[in-house]
């Protein structure tokens, strides 16, 4: 992975000093809370429902074991020994002390980490495929692109006060695992007919209140022009994006207002001045960065491992886990695996200090000391030998990291919601837990098969509910928590936005509604169909009908439930 040179480290140290000074001036009354706000946000510090929250950057989801150990130590010394992985592959600490945040950033800097631009109206952490560099369907490793973008976006002097936040994702594989069309800019690494590598540029995607998929602004952009072209897009956005209404300030609204043709024309006109200037990316620089992502020292192994095959045959629990958690790898005899952070009863994406250390140890022992965070809020070990899988599974299981549910119903993406977030209209975590409890039978879960159920506690859509087969969105109605259900969303190459099925539900109704939707699928599916396929084949109507059938009964039950709670 990318290692800092002296200049990178010096810049980071200077950032820590700058932040320390800003906080000191604030505490001395020289810098007001309002003036501090954008400064602390660009260092990841939010003020949430119960106090501060610090969002630590994990650039494109890559971590070394040493960095994860540092996160574990920080979580113990400065928080409650828990961290939370987000859909931008970052880590949030939910209970840091406001005054201690400069110390935390200083600690992070010792392992080349920071919280730079993890919030604020600036270019945010770049995200990518969590199987980058090992995926069999990859055209090219996206990480050098991401690191080039990280350096370009870090402290970009012109774009630190944009109309709104700005998110960029990169995909370089046949199958998009980075939801690039749900980003302000999505970059897809492609080759043209001449075999030259470049990028296809999508712009104006985003979830939130107005979910829109990104549109192609350029079919093929030679790699060397990537930064100048992004400068042009950002400049058009910085100058003409709306600043009068935060809900209409994302670039997607500008693209929508101008139309993609006119937006594209403006970008091209701007780019004409920037093209071939000093920002043109040199091959020397790209290669310098690419050298930071060498293939690890793989052993020459046969594609299949007899021991692993035997273990699969003998141990059903292991086979269940492997079926969900072991992924293809471009090197024979190796696999990538996902360690699940979606155990029922634990907030999705949460990882304890003990688990962090266990994962770091696993990475050191079995996966060349590196790991990744997926935007689905799980941990990936990308380079493990098939012959080691059984041992990894046993260690993972004893650390609560081997729930065999990756890609299944209980592997929900879930934002922190109303329990922690001050933006939320409703809680997310208890809803996720209630749904997980409803579907806790493993055979049932595996029979239902692949399905994405995502939960967001408000319209900001951090839980990516729009791109889930079943999306759950918390809404506030007169001070009560209600949940709107969307159906038919997808990520990947056929990314699509789910549609609302009808009036929202009480919190206690949600698990039954999910079950009703699942039942329609189980009755109607053909042998090969996943949930989303059945929805697409038969349409939303049968699902809607079932979701609202017997609603009066459920409501009555819900009321009883509430009375019971009230009587306790």
């Amino acid at each position, binding site marked *: 992975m990318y290692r800092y040179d002296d200049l990178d480290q010096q810049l980071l140290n*200077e950032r820590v000093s700058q932040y320390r000074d*800003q906080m000191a001036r604030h505490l001395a009354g020289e810098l007001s809370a309002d003036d501090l706000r954008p400064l602390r946000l660009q260092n990841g510090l939010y003020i949430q429902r119960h106090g501060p929250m610090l969002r630590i950057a994990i650039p494109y989801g890559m971590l070394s074991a040493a960095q994860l150990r540092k996160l574990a130590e920080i979580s113990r010394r400065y928080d409650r020994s828990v961290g939370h992985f987000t859909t931008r592959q970052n880590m949030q600490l939910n209970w840091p002390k406001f005054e201690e945040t400069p110390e935390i950033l200083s600690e992070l800097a010792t392992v080349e980490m920071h919280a730079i631009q993890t919030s604020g109206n600036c270019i945010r952490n770049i995200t990518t495929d969590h199987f980058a560099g090992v995926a069999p369907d990859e055209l090219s490793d996206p990480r050098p692109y991401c690191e080039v973008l990280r350096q370009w976006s870090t402290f970009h002097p*012109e774009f630190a006060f944009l109309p709104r936040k700005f998110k960029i994702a990169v995909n370089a594989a046949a199958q998009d695992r980075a939801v690039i069309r749900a980003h302000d800019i999505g970059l897809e690494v492609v080759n043209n007919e001449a075999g030259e590598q470049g990028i296809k540029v999508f712009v104006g995607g985003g979830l939130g209140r107005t979910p829109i998929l990104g549109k192609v602004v350029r079919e093929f952009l030679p790699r060397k022009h990537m930064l100048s072209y992004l400068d042009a897009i950002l*400049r058009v956005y910085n100058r003409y994006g709306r600043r009068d209404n935060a809900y209409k300030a994302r670039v997607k609204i500008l693209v929508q207002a101008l139309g993609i043709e006119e937006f594209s024309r403006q970008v091209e006109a701007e780019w004409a001045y920037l093209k071939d200037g*000093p*920002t043109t990316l040199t091959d020397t620089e790209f290669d310098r960065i690419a050298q930071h992502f060498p293939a690890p020292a793989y052993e020459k192994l046969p594609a299949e491992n007899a021991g692993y095959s035997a273990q699969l045959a003998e141990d059903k629990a292991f086979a269940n886990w492997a079926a969900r958690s072991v992924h293809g790898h471009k090197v024979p005899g190796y696999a990538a695996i996902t360690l699940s952070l979606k155990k029922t009863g634990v907030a999705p994406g949460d990882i304890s200090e003990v688990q962090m250390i266990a994962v770091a140890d696993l990475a050191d022992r079995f996966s060349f000391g590196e790991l990744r965070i997926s935007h689905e809020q799980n941990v990936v070990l990308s380079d493990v030998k098939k012959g080691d899988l059984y041992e990894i599974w046993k260690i993972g299981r004893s650390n609560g990291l081997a729930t065999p549910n990756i890609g299944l119903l209980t592997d929900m993406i879930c934002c922190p919601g109303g329990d922690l977030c001050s933006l939320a209209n409703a809680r997310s975590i208890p809803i996720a837990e209630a749904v997980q409890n409803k579907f806790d039978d493993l055979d049932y879960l595996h029979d239902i098969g692949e399905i994405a159920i995502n939960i967001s506690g408000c319209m900001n859509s951090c839980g990516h509910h729009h791109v889930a087969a079943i999306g759950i969105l918390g809404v506030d109605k007169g001070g009560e928590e209600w949940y709107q259900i969307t159906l038919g969303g997808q990520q990947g190459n056929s990314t699509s936005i789910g549609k609302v099925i009808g009036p929202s539900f009480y919190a206690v109704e949600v698990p039954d509604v999910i079950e009703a939707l699942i039942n329609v699928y189980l009755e109607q599916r053909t042998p090969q169909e996943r949930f989303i396929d059945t929805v697409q084949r038969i349409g939303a109507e049968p699902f809607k009908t079932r979701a609202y059938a017997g609603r009066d009964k459920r409501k009555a039950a819900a009321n009883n439930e509430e009375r019971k709670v009230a009587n306790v």
Partner: protein
Amino acid sequence: MSEIIKNGGIVSDDWQVLKLAEGESVESVVLPGTATLLPLAVWLARKPEIIASGQKTGVWLESSEDPAAIAADVAHFTVIGIDFPKFTDGRGYSSARLLRERYGYCGEIRAIGDVLLDQLFYMKRCGIDAFALRADQNPEKALASLATFSESYQAAVDQPQPLFRRRAA
């Protein structure tokens, strides 16, 4: 006279910023004479008269105003002001770069309005070289903030070569 940050120091300065008061129009407003930053609309409407006066001339841009409007005029100005109505309004950073990098303006670019010391480093990088700080800001600390970072990744006005071109050398 007030103090501003300029040329790496704290200096006294007598430039005034003209803002149209209620009831004043572009055509009728009395021009105060030398060392005044005029609203863009006044400059555009009364260019011949202002040039004929032979006095030191400046103009200031609102954050929404396009510097292209003065692209052909920049040689007339001693100072161009860029207004930051709120420090979180980042349009002025682009305006400054356009004036320097596209329209070839070499005179002073002065940040006016909600100018806070924590924004000075990025402003400097975008070609702003004078800063009329908000009244509550500490000028010494503001001056020091211009040296917050010793390096920068991107190409900008103060360093036209991105770090990667200099790193490789």
